[in-house]
């Protein structure tokens, strides 16, 4: 597997450095430990949003640092949660005194590292609230698993909670908004190919030419089961049906439909999936009020996609529409 990199061990450092150079108007990049903060942070009086996780999901999270979204992003090694010694200074750097929300994808590593960091930041006098994102319906949410993973829905949580913070909501209020998004968003993904972690050098899994992997996460881990390749319309049903079932979407409800590429699938194919997903929602009488199509929560160069549905209400729609200005998501300004 060839990669446009220099040394597997410097991938994250160099990539984040380049990111900082390309978006010097929006972000400051700290090194050693590495984290990315919004230019001009802390914003006086504003609740700050911090997220992070393993690298390899770009533009998540650093691409969403900026006005109306994150105040800081903390990139770990590829597919490895960041450590407290990165999360703590990132948290301190953006706290205006109004408190900090940690948006944490539900993985054991992320949870433990953010937990530790939050404790230590609290000990330093910073009010920290953590919000756990666990939108992946592919994983059974039971006592016998680590619980549902946080996947594509994370970007929706970050955008909407970011808008609430930007308009001046309190720490509790922003956390409430974020939790409201988490309650109302579900996701499921498919892989047509595995991906190769730079330091590993071989694909995370291999699929035959007529196989796809259903229910994948965003770390190149194998999914729930492997099936024979199908057409895009059939695959779309396989992903969307469990999402709608779990959310209990009823006729007349308004939703945001998010078709997310895993990194290596052409945009044109994402629109083919979007087309069928929108048709299915229309057949069920749901109204697609907002859409997002593109590579936002990726798994390196994996081929495949995920479909997320967020149940909207007026409040969430207003916050979704609020201006945002980050390297990877921008509107209204």
């Amino acid at each position, binding site marked *: 597997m060839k990669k446009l990199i220099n040394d597997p061990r410097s991938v994250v450092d160099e990539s984040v450095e380049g990111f900082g150079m390309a978006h010097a108007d929006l972000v400051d990049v700290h090194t050693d430990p590495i984290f990315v903060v919004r230019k001009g942070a802390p914003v006086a009086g504003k609740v700050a949003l911090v997220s992070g996780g393993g690298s390899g999901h770009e533009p998540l999270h650093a691409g969403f640092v900026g006005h109306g979204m994150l105040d800081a992003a903390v990139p770990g090694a590829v597919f*490895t949660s960041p*450590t407290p*010694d990165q999360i703590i200074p990132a948290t301190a750097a953006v706290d205006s005194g109004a408190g900090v929300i940690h948006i944490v994808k539900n993985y054991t590593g992320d949870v433990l590292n953010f937990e530790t960091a939050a404790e230590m930041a609290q000990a330093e006098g910073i009010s920290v609230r953590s919000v756990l994102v666990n939108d992946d319906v592919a994983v059974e949410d039971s006592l016998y698993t*680590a619980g549902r993973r946080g996947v594509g829905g994370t970007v929706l949580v970050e955008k909407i909670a970011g808008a609430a913070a930007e308009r001046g909501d309190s720490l509790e209020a922003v956390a409430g908004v974020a939790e409201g998004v988490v309650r109302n968003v579900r996701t499921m993904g498919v892989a047509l190919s595995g991906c190769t*972690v730079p330091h590993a050098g071989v694909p995370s*899994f291999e699929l035959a030419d007529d196989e796809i992997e259903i229910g994948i996460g965003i770390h190149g*881990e194998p999914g*729930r089961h492997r099936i024979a390749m199908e057409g895009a319309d059939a695959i779309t049903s396989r992903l969307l049906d469990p999402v709608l079932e779990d959310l209990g979407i009823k006729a007349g409800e308004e939703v945001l439909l998010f078709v997310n590429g895993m990194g290596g699938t052409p945009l044109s194919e994402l629109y083919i999936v979007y087309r069928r997903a929108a048709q299915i929602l229309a057949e069920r009488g749901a109204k697609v009020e907002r859409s997002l199509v593109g590579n936002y929560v990726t798994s390196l160069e994996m081929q495949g996609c995920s479909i997320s549905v967020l149940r909207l209400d007026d409040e969430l729609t207003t916050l979704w529409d609020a201006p945002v200005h980050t390297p990877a998501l921008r509107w209204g300004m």
Partner: protein
Amino acid sequence: MGLGVEWAVQWLTLSARLMSEHREELIALDRAIGDSDHGENMDRGFQAVMEKLAQTPPETPGAALKLAAMALMSKVGGAAGPLYGTAYLRAATALGENADVDAVALAGALTAARDGIVARGKAELGDKTMVDAWSPAVEAADEVLVAGGDAVAVLAAAAEAAEVGAVTTDPLVARKGRASYLGERSAGHRDPGAASSALLLRAAATAAGFPDGAAE
């Protein structure tokens, strides 16, 4: 006489060597049921331990383990970082300022380490995690202690039991950590964290003078 700081430093040094030697093997284990990073994470973490050891040589076994805990916590990341960080920190606390560690202290430290992992990770025996290496290790250590074994014997028993424990994870269905997402598909693969735990405990025994070619 028990084990001194030289033992602790040697333990960490052997650990770093083993993590580097088994890096690809641990990555491969993690690729099968996880996300291909465990070997890389552990190797990176123990390199950091070695750097810290060189910078500020510790004066007691407890200080050495505390230094390791801090380096692991800040450099490993993922699930293993906080778990091992907590384990080494609790062990360090259990050892206190003692310059010399006897069998009792050692068994206590192992128990503290295991309890730290369980406290953080909430995994039970049989969940297919590193607990499946640490719990048998603690039990074996306690048995040797009751039977009057010395520090070296305690560590040897722990290492032996951890290795067996790691192997017992092979058929298990994971219920904690990333492998749990796979459900039934996680069976038939060794848990990478249990495998690295066995290596680390083997390093402890080897450092104490218990002969084992596998660790050298």
